[in-house]
């Protein structure tokens, strides 16, 4: 069977096939408006040797299933957890003739925190942190009475372990939405949870809570058609990266309810920090196009970065009732990709003329 050539590629996780189907009318409309063809495919279907894949081909508003060549410009909206798919992505990423935006969506948090620490501007938004050892945790609990433990790298946003020293040898541990009180054998308990995986100790402040649980805000950012970062959705969450804790209440309302002074300025600050953080990370990590930052707050409402991610498979945007934000997100992603394609065409023309 002859394979089709398409302009832009969309890589997704196969378990999201059904969700993706709902987005097809959007892709079809966008493809027609911008006169570009799109191929939607999974890495599982990709033949690496031949750089061909089965997929959904959208051309001039028509949607067919078929065989396509891997396009030059692709957006990776997937997390690849199997060795085979990760190998395929590594190969695509290193291929000089192919551009993959967001080739990796799950970052090593220690490395990203180290990168951000090199910009003095962002230090106020980072908790003091270090790699987990038993001794360092004991020290943190002795001096600060509390600490947050964050897994360095995981494919799913990890639950966070909060440890508070209530009194001598009595510790309160918050793990997701569970709370336990542990006497003395805290390291035994933690070693079962951590299982020798690398963790970070964030030497946190007392966190601002909302409706009884730590307030958390996720800010999505993505590049627009000019390659500039723009703010996407802002989600209010609770329970430190735990699932099913999203609220549709607006950030402004929550800040106001939490009696924070200058709540609008605090929202502005969060947006500004998010935009600047990824502009800075662009110097260390190539081909970023869609990312998010999770923030927590101290009692004055000062934000601290808790977690940095690219695209997560359990994308919260698609779980909100209103699909407009998802459509906006896709529109921005494809406009950026199309701009890259047009730029490449210009560069090619320049080099031919020159």
């Amino acid at each position: 069977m002859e394979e089709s050539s398409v302009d832009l590629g969309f890589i997704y996780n196969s378990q999201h096939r059904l969700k993706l189907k709902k987005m097809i009318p959007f892709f079809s409309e966008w493809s027609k408006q911008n006169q570009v063809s799109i191929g939607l495919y999974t890495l599982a279907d990709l033949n690496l040797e031949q750089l061909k894949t089965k997929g959904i081909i959208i051309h001039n508003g028509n949607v067919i299933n078929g065989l396509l060549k891997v396009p030059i410009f692709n957006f990776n909206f997937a997390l690849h957890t199997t060795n085979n798919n990760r190998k395929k992505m590594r190969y695509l990423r290193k291929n000089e003739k192919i551009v993959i935006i967001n080739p990796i969506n799950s970052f090593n948090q220690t490395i990203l925190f180290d990168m951000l620490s090199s910009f003095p501007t962002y230090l106020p938004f980072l908790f003091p942190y270090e790699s987990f050892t038993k001794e360092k945790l004991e020290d943190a609990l002795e001096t600060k009475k509390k600490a947050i433990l964050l897994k360095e790298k995981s494919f799913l946003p990890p639950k966070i372990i909060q440890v508070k020293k209530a009194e001598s040898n009595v510790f309160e541990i918050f793990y997701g939405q569970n709370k336990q009180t542990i006497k003395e054998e805290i390291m035994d308990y933690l070693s079962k949870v951590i299982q020798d995986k690398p963790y970070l100790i964030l030497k946190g402040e007392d966190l601002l809570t909302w409706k009884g649980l730590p307030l958390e805000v996720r800010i999505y950012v993505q590049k627009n058609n000019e390659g500039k970062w723009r703010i996407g959705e802002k989600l209010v969450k609770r329970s430190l990266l735990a699932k099913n804790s999203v609220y549709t209440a607006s950030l402004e309302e929550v800040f106001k309810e939490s009696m924070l002074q200058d709540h609008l300025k605090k929202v502005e600050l969060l947006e500004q920090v998010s935009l600047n953080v990824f502009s800075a990370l662009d110097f260390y990590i190539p081909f970023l196009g869609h990312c998010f930052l999770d923030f927590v707050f101290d009692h004055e409402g000062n934000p601290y970065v808790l977690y940095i991610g690219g695209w997560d498979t359990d994308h919260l945007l698609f779980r909100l009732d209103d699909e407009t934000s998802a459509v906006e997100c896709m529109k921005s992603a494809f406009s950026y990709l199309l701009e890259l394609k047009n730029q490449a065409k210009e560069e090619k023309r320049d080099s031919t003329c020159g």
Partner: protein
Amino acid sequence: MWVKIQKATDNEGDTTIIVPSELNEQWLHKTHVQYGERSIPITVKVDVNLVYNQENNYENPQMIHFSSALIEKLDLIDKITYQISEDNETISLGPIVGFLLGDQQYYYHDRYLQELTISMENYAKIGGLFMAFNHFSVDWDQRVVHGLFYDFELKKWSYGRMPIPMVIYRRGFTYGNRFVERLQQLKGMFLFNEIRFNKWQMYNLLQDHTSFQTYLPETVRYVNADSIKQMIDKYKKIILKPADLSRGRGIIVLEKIKEKIKVRDYRSVVPYFIEENNLQSLLEGENLFKNDYIIQQYINLARISDALWDIRIVMQKDPEHQWRCSGIECRVAGRNRVITNISNGGRALTLKQALLESFEKEIDPEITELEVIRISEQFCKLMDQTGYKFAEFGLDLAIDEEMNFWFIEANVRPTFNGFKTLDMEIYKKICENPVFFASSVAGFKRM
């Protein structure tokens, strides 16, 4: 002189250097400080309380104070120790050397820079700012590099904001040349390994030199099945190589046996046969020629226990800017393999071991080694004649059953992992030689 920079306590707005009175006469008329690409006008002042360091060495550097405005304008990393070089008007802090990385890692961190960390083992003999960065790390508006610099006290690479270095050792080639061209436009830039020739370009360069032709197997570029047919009719056995790939990827050996062609590729240990008239459709069907391919006569190379072997010679420039052989390793292919890479099941041997196992006593290892080095030096000098700047090559030579030498290929960014098992000291030297060469280009010698 070794120096360490401290921020001046009196926070003056101008760009001032404060030195002990003993340096006043020598430095009073200096007008600029040079730090990588940055050259900032300065005023030199004296602080009689600053102690002049008689016993100057890396451990006891001279303390010099820079105003905070100067530190800011230089984007100075002030936690490391520098050497000073000077001319009539300018004081230079250095060496400032950049390693331009490739895309082996999606993003870099100290934990992924082991080879560069090994290269820094003798850092205390050279000091200065060594940075590792990528093609996307330069902020051209601010003219700064966001990269990793080596912190000898911590023995690790830390992220930081630095000026653009004027000596750059290129170690990655997978991105377009636009970035490299932009760097080359900077006045005074020394960018080494600025280009990588593919196999076809290399062949064309070398075959112009009569003295080197003798080491080159006949090579043609793949156009269609006829190109293969002509070569296979002439030589009966040929080797097809992708012009742009290294490490043996994509290699196919074809051998004409009566009316059939025996095919063996780099992935398999078991060959298969095709009809000669099906060659074009089969190869295209397999999508083998999506890449640019060259076709070479197959050389019956010497073998060790029926396995192919070749010689990897690492050539590097020394601080006197002369080509030197840093190491020779022989790589024996895995059983029934057409390529010799260690990563493909091969093993590493010394030249002496390989010659002994392959030819027993027929060949003198010392004379062979001298000949191998002579050919490699000849190659490097030919590369210098192209006008491009090179500082490192990994040459692959081979010896055939008649004891003739053959040039297989050369890479500007060779892997030399075989030395880890053969001789760790040689491996470490290969890692650190670029540091001393690049420092010397920057105007700073090993102390």
